[in-house]
């Protein structure tokens, strides 16, 4: 028995994975080129649904990028050894997802060639302009944080950097929630609940992504995650999933309490066709109930169950974002409250949206960028969690 063939096989697999990631990223770039050439007419977006599938992908990646740092914060800020061993991997994933999400957001612009305009003209009343600062700041901070962890001489600054990242990512996800919270005229948005809701959602989504990647890395290195550690992490995931479900439920309950919001809630939760279906089946059942069962049911909660639960949480995230972003725009603006309205511009109508292939290519391109950054980094640097003998802290 020789270890050579296995090693050889793994090397081949690594390059194959990288090539696949590269091909998907290239397909995304092709979509960008087409959208640049023909205009957004080739996307499914229109003057009623102005943000579509690319925004679902981008916002998932950005929110999860912030949430995955929870693992690092529990280690650096709250001093839990099990999490501290995972802080480098969490930081890497954060950088990777942030890069992927921002690329999608940027390349979906009508004029991505004017990125310098966005970088040099700031309107300080715009949440988007704040986010330009928040995202680039997060990028730099997490890189410094990684440096304090991976370079021994910088270790003394680790706690301070960890604290800065901890604060920054709360502000960042608040900024992401505020993009919608400040849209007072839209019935789906304009709620102060959105920033905290996004923060709690980020915890669950980030940890789920972390779990998936960690499981794959352990598998790759033929290691087994200690059951005590798995148990702690899966319980945490369960708590985060419950917390985020609570926030989403609160958002809808408060809406239902306001008479002027009831029509919108009925649309999203009952009458809106694809939107209630995605909400109940995609988000609630697949994204919450099933993962919670896989985590907490006696006899379940083993490594495979936790992996499945994590993947389902990610799936649920996409379903929720689709309902939130696209369903929120599909419901007509209330320009004349108390009146029935109709026009040539879709007033009073539920807007139709059929995402095009190009939008999906762009979205998956963003995922591919995050995947490539993660795969290459894990290969060339040591991101494998190094656990000391387990102590319950």
């Amino acid at each position, binding site marked *: 028995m020789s270890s050579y063939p296995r090693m050889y096989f793994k090397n081949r697999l690594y390059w194959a994975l990288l090539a696949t990631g590269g091909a998907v990223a290239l397909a995304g770039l092709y979509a960008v080129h087409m959208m640049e050439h023909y205009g957004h007419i080739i996307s499914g977006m*229109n*003057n009623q649904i102005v943000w579509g599938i690319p925004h679902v992908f981008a916002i998932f990646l950005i929110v999860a990028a912030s949430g995955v740092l929870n693992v690092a914060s529990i280690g650096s800020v709250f001093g839990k050894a099990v999490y501290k061993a995972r802080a480098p991997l969490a930081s890497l994933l954060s950088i990777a997802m942030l890069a992927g999400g921002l690329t999608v957001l940027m390349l979906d612009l009508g004029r991505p060639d004017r990125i310098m305009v966005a970088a040099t003209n700031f*309107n300080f009343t715009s949440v988007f302009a704040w986010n330009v600062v928040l995202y680039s700041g997060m990028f730099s901070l997490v890189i410094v944080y990684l440096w304090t962890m991976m370079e021994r001489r910088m270790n003394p600054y680790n706690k301070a950097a960890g604290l800065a990242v901890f604060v920054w990512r709360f502000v960042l996800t608040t900024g992401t929630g505020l993009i919608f919270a400040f849209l007072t005229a839209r019935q789906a948005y304009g709620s102060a609940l959105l920033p905290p809701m996004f923060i709690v959602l980020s915890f669950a989504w980030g940890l789920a992504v972390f779990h998936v990647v960690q499981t794959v890395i352990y598998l790759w290195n033929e290691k087994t995650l200690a059951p005590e550690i798995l148990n702690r992490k899966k319980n945490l995931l369960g708590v985060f999933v419950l917390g985020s479900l609570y926030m989403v439920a609160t958002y809808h309950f408060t809406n239902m309490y306001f008479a002027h919001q009831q029509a919108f809630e009925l649309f999203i939760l009952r009458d809106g066709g694809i939107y209630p279906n995605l909400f109940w089946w995609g988000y609630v059942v697949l994204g919450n109930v099933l993962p919670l069962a896989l985590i907490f049911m006696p006899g379940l909660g083993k490594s495979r169950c936790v992996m499945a639960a994590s993947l389902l949480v990610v799936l649920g995230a996409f379903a929720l974002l689709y309902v939130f972003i696209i369903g929120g725009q599909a419901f007509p603006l209330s320009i004349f409250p108390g009146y029935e309205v109709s026009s040539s511009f879709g007033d009073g109508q539920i807007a139709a949206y059929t995402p095009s292939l190009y939008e999906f290519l762009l979205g998956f391109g963003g995922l591919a960028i995050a995947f490539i950054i993660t795969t290459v980094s894990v290969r060339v640097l040591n991101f494998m969690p190094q656990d000391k003998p387990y102590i319950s802290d």
Partner: protein
Amino acid sequence: MSDIDQMSIDRARRNFLKTSAGAAALAIAPGMMLFQVAHGDTQGASDKVRWGMLIDTNQCKEGCNDCVSACNKENGLSGKTGPTDSQWIRKIEIKDVSSGRELSLPMMCQHCEHPPCVDVCPTNASMKRADGIVLVDKHRCIGCRYCMMACPYKARSFVHEPLTDQNPDVPRGKGTVEACTLCVHRIDQGLKPACSEACPNKAILFGDLNDANSEIAQKVRAVATTQIRADLRLNPGVRYQGL
């Protein structure tokens, strides 16, 4: 070095500087003159003025689309009404759910005093001119569409396709957002917006809301007018009568 040598050097230097300054002035002067000719009077919009409109819904007829056609022609819009086509002004038919009363009215950018589109624009491309006209700087817009999300009146359109045959006075651009400009190019020439001029029933009254003697200011004082979604406190420059 003697004093005389020093003086002669100084004189040479002085002459050189004088000649250079003269040559520079000669080189720049024609350019400055041409700039003046090209730009004419560069006086900007005045903040003493607040351009606005008063739309009399009693005079606006259902089925009449003259304001929309005039806008399309003036601004070089295709006039198509698909979900990706630009519509700067549209006719809306409304029916009071409780009383059944029906009305027809034009809807366009309301040129708010506190425009949400300007607040949310990351690059300051959405802007409000001193005289209250809300515009998009087509050279600065990056096409993020955040303003379209923020506008309570759905007044803005995104250019989804390459454009041809544009009106030189009304520049537009693929990948940027656009909306009613209140025909700013006409206003700057002392003309009325195209929709106001085209309305057969004179339902669209245009003028300076700040000028107490203007027809619009007098009418706004005399009759009951409504600002749409007044609850949002945006103080639109477009008002409606008979709503």
